[in-house]
């Protein structure tokens, strides 16, 4: 099952560590994203993160910094545009998404024409968990910890304002500030996803495991734990398969990690539709 050199390879260690961190954070945030009906917003942030990543490539800044900065600015823009109630959130998200995508096109173009580095477009959009530098891991770990702790602090008011905004407002909660804080946290989580499986596929880790978990779990805590587990399993399986895939063909041309991660996530989601037998159902 494990191709030779799997356990001794440094880049596999980095990939496993980073993948684990990312899966845990994205599982946690994903459940709340779905509870708040913000899958489009969450996905839009991944595309805005692309802009940041492309900008970072152009300016030769660390990719994680670019992804997170881009997504955070995008979150602020979406939230401030949709605060105007006359216009739907959908449109505000779409406008920010369109403008940001244009900008990432420009950054990628400028990077490709001014530097000799090749493969920037693929690197930013589809990522490569095996080529992440090991120095990213501690930074990612600290970022993930900040997101998790903040979520633990605001989880209860956030849950209330997601499920019953009127009640939350009646209790004196500042729901719009909570909404902004939440979107900023999602932005950071998306930045972390982007570094591991690329910004185009970051949505997969954010939405996929949570969608699977929410079909099966009846409590929020259960859903979060399950989403994290699905994310972890998918990331690990993805890393093993991608590593193995280099030996599948004589040419040594492997398939990307992101492909296997997403395929595993979708397989889990499909499985969650299989009805449990009556004896197992509580």
């Amino acid at each position, binding site marked *: 099952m494990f191709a030779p050199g799997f356990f001794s390879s440094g880049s596999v260690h980095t990939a496993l560590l980073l993948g684990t961190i990312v899966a845990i954070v994205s599982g946690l945030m994903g459940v709340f994203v*779905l509870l708040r*009906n913000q*899958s*489009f917003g969450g*996905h839009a942030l991944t*595309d805005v993160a692309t802009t940041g990543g492309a900008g970072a490539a152009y300016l030769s800044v660390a990719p994680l910094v670019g992804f997170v900065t881009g997504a955070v600015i995008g979150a602020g823009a979406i939230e401030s545009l949709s605060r*105007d109630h006359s*216009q*739907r959130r*959908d*449109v505000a*998200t*779409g*406008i*920010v*998404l*369109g*403008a*940001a*995508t*244009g*900008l*990432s*096109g*420009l950054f*990628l*173009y400028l990077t*490709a024409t001014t530097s000799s580095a*090749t*493969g*920037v*477009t*693929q690197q930013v*959009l*589809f990522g490569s968990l095996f080529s992440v530098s090991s120095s990213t891991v501690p930074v990612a770990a600290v970022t993930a910890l900040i997101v998790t702790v903040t979520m633990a602090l605001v989880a209860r008011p956030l849950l209330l304002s997601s499920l019953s905004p009127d009640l939350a407002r009646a209790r004196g909660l500042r729901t719009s500030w909570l909404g902004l804080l939440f979107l900023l946290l999602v932005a950071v989580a998306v930045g972390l996803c982007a570094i591991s499986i*690329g910004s*185009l*596929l970051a*949505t*997969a880790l954010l*939405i*996929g495991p949570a*969608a699977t978990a929410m*079909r099966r779990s009846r409590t929020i805590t259960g859903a979060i734990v399950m989403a994290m587990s699905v994310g972890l399993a998918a990331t690990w399986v993805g890393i093993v398969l991608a590593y193995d895939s280099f030996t599948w063909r004589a040419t040594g*041309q*492997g*398939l*990307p990690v*992101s*492909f296997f*991660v*997403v*395929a595993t*996530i*979708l397989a889990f*989601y499909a499985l969650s*539709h299989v009805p449990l037998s009556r004896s197992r159902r509580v």
Partner: protein
Amino acid sequence: MIHAWEVGTIVAIVAGLVGFFVVLRSSAFPAHAIPNGAFAGAAGASLVGASPLVGLGLFAALGALSIAWLGRRTRSDIATALVLIGMLALGAAFLSQSTAYEPQVFALLFGEILGVSSTQLIPIALLGTAASITLLALYRPLLLGSVAPELARAKGVAIRRLDLVFLLIVAAVTTMTVPVVGTLLMFALMIAPPAAARSLTNRPAIALTLSSLIALVVMWGAIASAYQMNWPVGFFVGAYGALSYGLARLWRRATRN
């Protein structure tokens, strides 16, 4: 260059028409997911040596059908997200196997209008006309189904079938616009001009016309700027689109006070 103008004009008019309904129906997410995921089709087509237009069309239609199918089983935003990531993952796999040069990948994602050839003109024009005629023929039920779904159902409009037809129209438009503005920016052209038009007027027929006009101005401006500065056309589409929306909002605020 002449081809770029011709194709750009067709693309802008049709995107403005379809976009009006996209904004009205709040289906920005599927309208984003279909072109974005169809990118995989183009990548796959280049892998087997087929025309990218065929790959795009196939995957766009497949995406529309899957979103409609899965949308009956789960929440529609989750259905859209799952279909999107599935198609993108395939795209990533296709790309890793192909020997396409980076500029080709880039052109697919962000558009390469100055490279449009005369052979692409006829299929694009045909698809555009078909999509526009279908839209205008369905104008009344679509409008009613978007604004008051219950009333439409009471009047005997088959909402589900209408949703599917609409997604397929989006898929057709995707196929024709992607070679021009790219998968990622096709969406900008479908959202910003109609949103701007809806800020300017409340009357649907005028908003529909205005939407196409604004899209046309954005497109022409983008082509001219791209030609002048030699930057990707997609960037200007995104920027001018957002600008048109911002101006329309300012205009609305100014005329209201």
